[in-house]
C-alpha cells in the first residue's frame, strides 16, 4: 500500500520581520533584517554583554479576531499562535464558523475535527506571564510604599521599587495557570478551532517547531489524522529583560562589535552569538494529499521526510562532532527516500553562535558537500526560539513554491566554503531540508519537496 502523502496548504507567520507570512517572506527576500537596541528600561536591572535584539512589530490582535476579554486571559505566545493559525487557515481556504461565542469556539467547514490535530512547539511557554504574576505576588506587601512621597536625595533603589510597583497589574491574573503552562498555545488552537484529534506540545527549546512539523507529518501519514495545524509560538518580551539576561549571562547572544546592524551574522567568521527575538509564531496547515486535492486546495510543498536524534552530551553546547545532527538529517533523507545529493536547498539552523555554526557547517559539508544552496533565516528574523523551526519550515515551503532562496545577511567571511546564498537567489528547487538543534541536545530535520503530482 502506498504511503499517505502530506501537503502544506496554508501558512501563517508573525516574526520580527512582519505580521503576516507574505510580509515576513518579502522582508527575507529583500534582506530587511530585524535588529534594534534593547529597551532602555532593562538597563535599570542589569548591564548586558549584548545590547541588541529583534523586537516584534506591532501586531493587531483585534484584527485577528482576539476579543479584548480574551486577550486578558492569554499569554503573548498563545496570542501570536492564534494570529498565525488564523492566517494559515484563511490562506488554506478553510472557512470557520462561530459555534460558541462565549468560549470563542469555531468550526472548520469540511474538516472532521476528530481527525484533525494540533502540534505546536515552544521553548519557554508562558514565561512572560510567569514573570508578571510572580512580580505581582512578591510585591503586593510593598504596595503601601508606593505613595511615600519624593525622596530627599536621588535614590535609585526607590526609583526601581516605584517602577516595579507601578508596573504591577491591578489584580493577580486568575488565568495565570492556563497562561503559563507550555501547552497553552496548542490547547488554545485546539479549542478555538474544534480540533479534537491529538493535541501535542513539543517543548524542545529551539528545535521545537521543527519537531512539531515532523510529528504532524507522522500523525497524518499514520492515518491518525487527515489534517493538522503545526508550528510553534514564542513570546519572551518581558518588561524587565530577565529572559534576555538569562541568555546574555550564558554568553550566547550577539555582541555589537561594529554596528548593531551587523551584530547578527550566522556562518560568518566574525559571529559572536545569536540575536534574541522578542517572539514569533508560524503555523502550517498540513493535509493528507487526497484530503487537500479533493477540496481543490493550493499546495505550497509536500512534506516528505522527518528525522530526529539526541546528543546525550550537554544541556548548553552542541556535541562537537555533530554526529547526531548529521544522523537526524540522514534519517529525514532516508524517510523521504532520497539521498543527500538530491537536496537543492538547506535552510540551516544557523544561529550565529560560535559552536553551532562551526559544527553545523561541518555537518552540512560532510553530508551535502558544497552543492546545495544554504541560508539561515535567523540572520533576518533573529532567533524566535521555539517558533524558529516552524518559521524556517514555512520559509522552506515558500522557497519551494517561489523557487527562490533568501540570503544570509551579514555573511562576509564564511566559516566554510559552502554554497551560501548571500542574497536572494532564483533557483530550481525540487528538494529542501530545514534543520534545527536545541539546548538540551535535540536535533531534528524536515524534508520538503516542490508540490507536484
Amino acid at each position: 500500500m502506498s504511503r499517505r502523502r502530506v501537503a502544506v496548504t496554508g501558512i501563517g507567520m508573525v516574526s520580527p520581520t512582519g505580521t503576516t507570512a507574505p510580509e515576513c517572506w518579502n522582508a527575507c527576500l529583500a534582506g530587511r533584517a530585524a535588529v534594534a537596541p534593547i529597551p532602555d528600561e532593562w538597563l535599570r536591572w542589569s548591564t548586558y554583554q549584548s545590547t541588541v535584539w529583534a523586537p516584534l512589530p506591532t501586531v493587531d490582535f483585534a484584527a485577528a479576531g482576539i476579543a479584548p476579554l480574551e486577550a486578558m486571559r492569554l499569554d503573548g505566545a498563545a496570542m501570536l499562535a492564534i494570529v498565525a493559525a488564523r492566517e494559515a487557515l484563511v490562506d488554506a481556504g478553510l472557512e470557520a464558523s462561530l459555534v460558541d461565542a462565549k468560549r470563542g469556539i469555531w468550526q472548520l467547514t469540511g474538516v472532521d475535527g476528530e481527525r484533525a490535530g494540533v502540534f505546536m512547539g515552544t521553548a519557554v511557554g508562558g514565561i512572560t506571564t510567569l514573570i508578571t504574576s510572580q512580580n505581582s505576588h512578591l510585591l503586593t506587601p510593598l504596595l503601601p510604599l508606593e505613595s511615600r512621597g519624593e525622596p530627599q536625595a536621588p535614590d535609585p533603589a526607590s526609583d526601581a521599587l516605584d517602577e516595579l510597583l507601578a508596573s504591577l497589574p491591578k489584580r493577580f491574573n486568575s488565568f495565570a495557570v492556563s497562561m503559563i503552562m507550555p501547552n497553552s498555545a496548542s490547547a488554545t488552537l485546539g479549542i478555538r478551532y474544534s480540533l479534537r484529534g491529538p493535541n501535542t506540545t513539543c517543548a524542545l527549546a529551539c528545535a521545537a517547531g521543527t519537531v512539531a512539523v515532523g510529528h504532524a507529518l507522522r500523525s497524518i501519514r499514520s492515518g491518525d489524522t487527515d489534517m493538522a495545524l503545526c508550528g510553534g509560538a514564542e513570546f519572551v518580551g518581558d518588561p524587565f529583560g530577565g529572559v534576555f539576561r538569562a541568555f546574555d549571562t550564558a554568553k550566547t547572544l550577539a555582541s555589537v562589535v561594529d554596528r548593531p546592524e551587523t551584530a547578527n551574522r550566522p556562518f560568518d567568521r566574525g559571529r559572536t552569538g545569536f540575536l534574541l527575538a522578542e517572539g514569533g509564531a508560524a503555523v502550517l496547515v498540513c493535509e493528507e494529499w487526497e484530503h487537500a486535492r479533493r477540496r481543490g486546495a493550493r499546495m505550497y510543498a509536500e512534506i516528505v521526510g522527518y528525522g530526529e536524534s539526541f546528543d546525550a552530551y550537554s544541556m548548553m553546547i552542541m556535541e562537537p562532532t555533530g554526529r547526531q545532527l548529521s544522523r537526524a538529517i540522514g534519517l529525514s533523507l532516508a524517510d523521504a527516500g532520497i539521498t543527500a545529493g538530491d537536496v537543492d536547498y538547506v535552510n540551516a539552523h544557523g544561529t550565529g553562535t560560535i559552536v553551532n555554526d562551526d559544527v553545523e557547517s561541518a555537518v552540512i559539508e560532510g553530508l551535502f558537500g558544497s552543492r546545495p544552496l544554504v541560508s539561515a533565516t535567523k540572520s533576518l528574523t533573529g532567533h524566535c526560539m521555539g517558533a524558529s523551526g516552524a518559521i524556517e519550515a514555512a520559509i522552506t515551503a515558500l522557497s519551494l513554491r517561489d523557487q527562490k532562496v533568501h540570503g544570509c545577511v551579514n555573511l562576509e567571511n564564511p566559516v566554510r566554503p559552502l554554497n551560501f546564498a548571500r542574497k536572494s537567489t532564483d533557483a530550481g528547487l525540487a528538494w529542501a531540508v530545514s534543520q534545527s538543534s536545541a539546548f538540551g541536545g535535540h536535533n531534528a530535520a524536515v524534508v520538503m519537496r516542490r508540490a507536484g503530482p
Partner: protein
Amino acid sequence: MSDPASPPSADVAARVGAVIREVLGLEACPVAASSRLREDLGADSVDAVMLVMALEREFKGKISDEEAARFCTVEEVVDYVSLRIGEQGLS
C-alpha cells in the same frame, strides 16, 4: 458615551449589562435586572472570574474576590458598582 440626561445609575446599569453580555457571549440578548448570573444566564465559575476582571477593566478599580462571590443577580452587580463608582473609578 452616556446620555447626559440619564441619571448615572442608568448609565452604570447599561455598562454592567454590556459587560455581562460580553463575558457570557450574549451580545444580541437583553439582560434583565432580575436575571440570576448562574441559573438564568448560564455563568460558570470561569465566567465569574472573567466577569470580575471585565468589570475592573470597565470601571477602573479593584473588586475583591470576597465581594464578587456575593454577586447573584445582574441588579446586585449594578448596585455594587453604583455604590462604589467615583470619578477615579471604583473605590
